[in-house]
């Protein structure tokens, strides 16, 4: 069996998993019901943890904590999530500096990587079931504008779900990979990725199989949900009574959903009725009014675009095409604004919901060593620097530098005999260190005690192809290598991840072989029950004794196999029993039909069976 690396789009509202088939086509893996999307929703209740559609159904259940949009919390400190806390309808507490959702039913706190891991594990299981093989490696996408901590947290989520994350790639780049392969055209492309909660823009040069990202920009707090919120805010402002009712989270939810519905409707017509009898609210919203409400957000998106164009030193006229990704790019006003800005054809032929996962699957294929003709050259979205005297940021690797990237910096001591040097690593574009995001603080220890200014400590800052930082240091006069351990400024540290992993493995009911066995046993039991019921009901007129014995023997064999641990064998024996009972089933069917045709009542099916 070929090893398969899957591509996963871990989205704010929906997640998907895709892979590249033997025939080269990329396929998004459906669940048992044939659905491609998995809502990125986790529900905690007394009777268990649900993920996806079944979790989303619980949204108004007062006994259940329903966690959604956890991606917005990924890799952020508790303090940084203040804005989210005001709008989210589930509780968030400060757990060692990280936001966490209390799970009172299991007496624990779930951090964003752990929540992400639940969604990822569901996708992993889905893929394993679909492909009938173990899936343990993945490429996961993140918004291009994710910082180091957010990328690291996503990688941790993968590890917690039992996935080796071969690469974290940027969503717009993934989208372009999916498009670029289809079109086979070279050129400079602008990619807009507007999702529920994040906006990303990338400029990408495609030339003979090399996908070179020229610049990227974005806003981690700009998305379709902001449009909905702007509409709701306008309703509340016009209607004080509604405003009072909206203190309750169900009412807020109701209004938000209605705003979303109206927003979609107004992409096709110029006026929409809003009728919410439950809260006694009725109004009309015109397209023009809505466009005015969302205009500030559209402007914010376009200012990101201008910054990226300036970084790449290109003009709108250099761009050969515009690619739209993400569900919210369906929004008419957004399309109009983009078309007007570039004056170029828009490519939106591929389903914007699927294209990111499909691109991740392409990158997964490259990383599995099967595609040497393609290469993705991505960039780091944020500048990396260190704090220098006076709290000023000194940039080491500017934003939009192609990764992997490396910078070396020499440090020395200020005091005679000093053996430690403190270094504060920052990410961001601001002048002052305190305005940027603190990535890590660490101490170079073991510096040889020499006169001030004599030691020469060369520190190497390495951003890998995932956009994640590693630091090494070497004292040059003595040649000693200092081990730098980066402690993330908050969030999961290496030990946390290790412990959680150990826990996950000790509850290893989830591994593929076990799950196959459980599924096979369940199916076997169903077939056995049906067979035994049929055997009780039918006489030798329908079932010859020889056949009965053969069936009974196979049931016995299957029961013995079920006591073992080989899931595949259970499945094979189940199929054998199925084949044996096939003629009986047909005869029963014919009998029922002739009974029905002669006006007799049908035998009651399954009445005694729970």
């Amino acid at each position, binding site marked *: 069996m070929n090893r398969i690396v899957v591509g996963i789009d871990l989205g704010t509202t929906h997640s998907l998993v895709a892979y590249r088939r033997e025939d080269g086509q990329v396929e998004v893996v459906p669940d048992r019901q044939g659905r491609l999307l998995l809502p990125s929703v986790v529900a905690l209740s007394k009777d268990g943890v649900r993920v996806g559609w079944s979790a989303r159904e619980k949204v108004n259940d007062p006994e259940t904590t329903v966690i959604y949009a956890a991606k917005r919390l990924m890799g952020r400190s508790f303090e940084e999530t203040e804005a989210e806390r005001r709008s989210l309808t589930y509780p968030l507490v400060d757990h060692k500096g990280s936001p966490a959702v209390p799970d009172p039913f299991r007496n624990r706190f779930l951090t964003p990587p752990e929540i992400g891991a639940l969604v990822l594990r569901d996708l992993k299981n889905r893929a394993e079931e679909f492909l009938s093989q173990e899936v343990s490696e993945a490429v996961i996408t993140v918004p291009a504008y994710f910082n180091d901590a957010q990328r690291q947290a996503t990688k941790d989520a993968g590890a917690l779900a039992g996935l080796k994350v071969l690469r974290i790639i940027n969503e717009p780049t993934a989208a372009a990979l999916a498009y670029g392969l289809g079109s086979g055209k070279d050129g400079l492309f602008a990619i807009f990725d507007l999702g529920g909660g994040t906006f990303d823009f990338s400029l990408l040069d495609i030339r003979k199989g090399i996908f070179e990202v020229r610049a990227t920009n974005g806003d981690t707090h700009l998305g379709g949900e902001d449009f909905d919120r702007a509409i709701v805010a306008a309703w509340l402002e016009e209607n004080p009574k509604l405003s009072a009712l909206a203190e309750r989270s169900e009412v807020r939810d109701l209004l938000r959903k209605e705003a979303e519905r109206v927003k979609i409707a107004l992409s096709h017509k110029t006026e929409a009725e809003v009728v919410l009898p439950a809260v006694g609210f009725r109004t009309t919203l015109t397209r023009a009014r809505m466009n005015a409400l969302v205009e500030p957000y559209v402007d914010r998106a376009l200012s990101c675009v201008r910054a990226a164009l300036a970084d790449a030193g290109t003009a709108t006229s250099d761009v050969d095409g515009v690619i739209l990704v993400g569900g919210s790019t369906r929004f008419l006003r957004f399309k109009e604004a983009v078309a007007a800005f570039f004056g170029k054809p828009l490519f939106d032929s591929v389903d914007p919901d699927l294209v990111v996962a499909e691109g991740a699957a392409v990158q997964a294929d490259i990383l599995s*060593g099967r595609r040497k003709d393609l290469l993705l050259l991505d960039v780091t979205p944020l500048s990396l620097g260190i704090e220098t005297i006076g709290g000023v940021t000194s940039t080491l690797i500017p934003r939009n530098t*192609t990764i992997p990237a490396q910078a070396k*910096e020499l440090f020395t001591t200020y005091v005679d005999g000093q053996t430690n040097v403190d270094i504060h690593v920052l990410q961001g574009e601001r002048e002052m260190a305190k305005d940027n995001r603190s990535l890590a603080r660490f101490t170079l220890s073991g510096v040889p005690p020499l006169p001030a200014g004599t030691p020469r400590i060369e520190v190497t800052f390495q951003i890998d192809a995932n956009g994640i930082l590693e630091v090494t240091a070497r004292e040059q006069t003595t040649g000693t290598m200092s081990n730098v351990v980066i402690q993330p400024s908050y969030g999961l540290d290496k030990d946390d991840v290790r412990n959680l992993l150990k826990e996950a493995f000790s509850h290893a009911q989830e591994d593929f072989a076990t799950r196959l066995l459980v599924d096979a046993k369940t199916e076997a039991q169903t077939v056995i029950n049906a067979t035994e019921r049929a055997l009780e009901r039918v006489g030798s007129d329908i079932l010859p004794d020889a056949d009965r014995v053969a069936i009974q023997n196979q049931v016995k064999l299957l029961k013995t196999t079920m006591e073992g641990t080989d899931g595949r064998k259970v499945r094979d024996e189940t199929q054998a029993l199925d084949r044996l009972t096939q003629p009986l089933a047909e005869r029963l069917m014919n009998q029922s039909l002739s009974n029905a045709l002669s006006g007799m009542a049908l035998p009651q099916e399954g009445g005694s069976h729970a």
Partner: protein
Amino acid sequence: MSDTKTAEKKPSQANLLHPDNREHSHSVCWNCEKKIGDEDVCPSCVRVQPFGPERDYYSILGLPARLTLDPRLLVAAYHEKSRTFHPDHHVEDSEKEQTIALGNASLVNLAFRTLRDPFLRAHYFIGHVKGEPARPNRKAVLSSSDLMEIMDLKEERDALLASQGPAVAEQRLRAVIDPIEQEIYHSFEEIDALVDGSEDGREKLSKALATLSERLEKRAYLQNLLKEIREAS
């Protein structure tokens, strides 16, 4: 750009002003221990080789050390080296080879970033000819010259910003920057010729490099003034 000479192997043009010119050191493959030169990939065992400390940005990309570079050749060289070293093409390899690929790919990116921009390239080239380290730790901080002129311009800019807006202020600055950039471009070919030329041209080269250096500094200051306008608006 007129320079279309391919990257033929010539004795290094580096360190002309310094006699302690080091040739590329020959070494052995880390894996099969066969003797090799500065090949990217060992000819015997096909493992990627780490760039030695003497490899400068030009040699990393396999390009001639000159001020004038054909942008198409530069991009082609960059893509070729990326295909060789990018970590995505070494996922299956040993940890040691992955580390080498990561380090080399980072240097390829840095080399391309430096040589792609004509002003960064010129700045690097000056250090290269002077025999400064092949891969400077950080881009040097430009020292101030022509400071009075720039201070005057800054005041003028601020006055224009206040009275007539950013577009006019930008226009005024561009009127100073554009000719300087033209002068910089025009000196590239002359300097390349001097580097290729005989010993007699050494003094002339030294002078031309000093002038280029001054113009680069001045331009950097003026660019900052421009940047401040854009950031303010």
